[in-house]
């Protein structure tokens, strides 16, 4: 095989004009794939670098198979979390309910929170009136109060889980947050209203410590979701957008396949004389096939190298110009990741081998001395 490869290499370099044409044909197509990928990588990195570091110190812990309204966690888990180092836990139960006042009604969440007063203080939530620690006292959000015309001391009728309760409004909350449109009460009081959900929680707000053992959480069948996941949301949106450019390259490999087929057909036709000489001096058909196939693969190898370089360099020139106009402080040079290189090389190889095999096979099975076979035949 090395001998055949050497012969193929000599044959390729001995006909530089045609070889360069084939190499360029394939290399340009590889460059068309590589250049946008390199630009997409640079743009993506540049945007990720410029994302402001908005983070939250809080997270919520929910059932790992979280289906809102149906998947609960057991209250006993709070002890385990405390033992794991989670501080400032706020266990909460959310119950979807119908709330009525006079002839007006709406559907809202009733949120049961453990130690409601401390929670308000910790969050700096203003309450017009007093808290709601004892049954049947509740606090309502300002928007819900306006919607139903509820005032301090009013009684609202709440229906959920097939039961109906009359609850007394002792405070109105105004926090520009989701509580503005909810009914809030103590966790124990909500359990009294819904005994079927006793010791059940919808979620626990926590301040996570560093180095949380996520496996331990998984074994407890819960998962932790950070609040304010801005960075994650931004990076997901950016990667989805730039992944589209990589998806766009997929059909282009069909063009590479076609190019490889044509280049190989031409190569096999032009190698007719060499194949005949090889066969005349006793080379098998397999050797003839390997000779023609090696020539195609050598051309392809040069094309991949040239195409990747051409693509990256042209991407750098174009992106430098764009970045100058963007006046960015986060310039990132376009480049291909090792994964991109492997992907381009592998897919190009697969396309090209698929395109080169048949012409090489035809060249090897051609009968010796067949005059009719023109070098230009497909």
């Amino acid at each position, binding site marked *: 095989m090395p001998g055949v490869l050497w012969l193929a290499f000599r044959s390729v370099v001995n006909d530089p004009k045609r070889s360069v044409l084939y190499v360029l044909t394939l290399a340009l197509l590889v*460059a068309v794939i590589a250049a946008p990928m390199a630009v997409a990588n640079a743009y993506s990195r540049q945007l990720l670098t410029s994302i402001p570091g908005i983070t939250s110190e809080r997270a919520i812990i929910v059932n790992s198979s979280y289906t809102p309204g149906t998947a609960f966690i057991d209250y006993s888990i709070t002890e385990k979390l405390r033992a794991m180092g989670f501080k400032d836990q706020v266990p909460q139960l959310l119950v979807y309910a119908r709330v009525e006042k006079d002839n007006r009604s709406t559907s809202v969440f009733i949120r049961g929170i453990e130690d409601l007063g401390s929670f308000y203080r910790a969050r700096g939530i203003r309450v017009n009136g007093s808290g709601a620690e004892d049954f049947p006292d509740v606090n309502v959000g300002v928007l819900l109060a306006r919607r139903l015309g509820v005032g301090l001391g009013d009684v609202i009728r709440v229906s959920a889980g097939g039961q109906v309760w009359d609850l007394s409004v002792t405070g109105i909350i105004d926090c520009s*947050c989701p509580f*503005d449109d909810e009914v809030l009460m103590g966790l124990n009081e909500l359990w009294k209203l819904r005994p079927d959900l006793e010791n059940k929680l919808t979620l626990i707000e926590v301040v996570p410590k560093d180095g949380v053992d996520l496996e331990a959480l998984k074994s407890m069948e819960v998962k932790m979701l950070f*609040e304010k996941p801005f960075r994650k949301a931004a990076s997901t949106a950016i990667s989805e957008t730039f992944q589209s450019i990589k998806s766009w390259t997929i059909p282009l490999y069909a063009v590479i396949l076609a190019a490889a087929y*044509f280049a190989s057909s031409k190569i096999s036709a032009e190698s007719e004389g060499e194949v005949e000489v090889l066969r005349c001096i006793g080379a098998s058909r397999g050797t003839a096939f390997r000779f023609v196939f090696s020539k195609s693969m050598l051309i392809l190898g040069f094309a991949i190298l040239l195409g990747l370089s051409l693509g990256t360099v042209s991407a750098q020139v174009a992106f430098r110009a764009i970045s100058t106009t963007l006046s960015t402080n986060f310039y990132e040079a376009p480049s291909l990741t090792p994964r991109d290189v492997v992907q381009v090389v592998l897919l190009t190889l697969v396309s090209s081998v698929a395109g080169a095999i048949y012409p090489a096979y035809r060249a090897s099975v051609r009968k010796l001395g067949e005059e009719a076979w023109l070098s230009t035949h497909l």
Partner: protein
Amino acid sequence: MALYASLISFRRLIPVFLTLLAVSAAIAFTASTFMGAYRTAVGLMGTGSSDVLLIYGASARAPQTSVVPLSLYEKLRGIDGVEAISPEAVSIAMIGDEVVVVRGIDPSVFPEISGIRLVAGSLSLDGSASALIGENLARKMRLGVGDTVLLRSAFSDAFLEVKVVGVFRSGSYLDDELLVPLYAGQWLRGLPRDAVSLIRVKIDPGKLGKEELASLLRSGRPVSGKASPQPESELMRLLTIPRARRFSMNYAVRSPEESMRSFLERQVKVNEVAVWSAVATVISGSILLVYLTSSTMIVSHSREISVLRGLGASRRNLVTRSAILAVFSSLITGVIGFFAGLALSNLFSDIGLIRVGPYSVRPVFDVYSLAMTLIAVASVSAVAAAAAVESIIRGDYLGG
């Protein structure tokens, strides 16, 4: 020509046709995908109606990231020619690991101004625990009426559990969004109750123009042009704050498309030229292949051409007929390839492979890209065919 055509072996031309088809499809796929992505981005605030304008902060990077005071709503109610006012709070939230654009709206105005149509459930947003979901998003997230989701705001510490009460279709970017009441959008965006992202207004073009509206907002004077102000919606009555802050700021008044085009040009440095550059890159990259293919098509008939030459056919005649054959072949394969590329682009869009952030891209059929594809492939083919005939006549292919 009939004799010439009878000498052509169409079996030998199959690989040629397939290659030209693949090249045309690749060019069309690129054009429809990139143009689709660009038009999707440009149309992100549009409603398809020419009498709808966006009002947002002039210094904001994009309408979606702007913050304007809700007191502007009061001012707009009094302007003659303003027919509908839709304040909106645009936010980003996560449902599990998926990014979703959540738009806080006034449900009594937004359906009319945006042209959304109900597919399932109801359009009634009854409280912060309810949401309307766009058709594409519902399909992507496998959500339907009655399902509940937990929204984690990307901008604030708010997390919100909402129940899907309706699925809608708009034929626009809204099909990839989740709609919630305005105040829920404010919580998720981290805005106070007296601020929104932008205000969309429907105007009567006969009474009020864009420039006139911009000038009225710039003047800062109280407006007294309307005999009876636009009625305040139920939701806006909830949000009204007696002593709402009055910000002094400059507003941009633009059509939705104009505002997004301006954002893309100023901030992202992307315009239609950039899109066509991508198409031109694919065309340039394929030129040698088209050349090689078309010359192969002619060279594979070198014997026939040599015979015709021997029988007295003129050089000009052979070159012309070969070029016509090449152009004809490329036009046929070009048109088929163009529609194949468009179909492929639609397929990629449908399975979610081509997206602009959380939005699906709708591929664009562009007559210019069809013309560009055909001209590029046909002209290169014609040149290649002519050159191949010349070389055959010169005797480059004699004797195999």
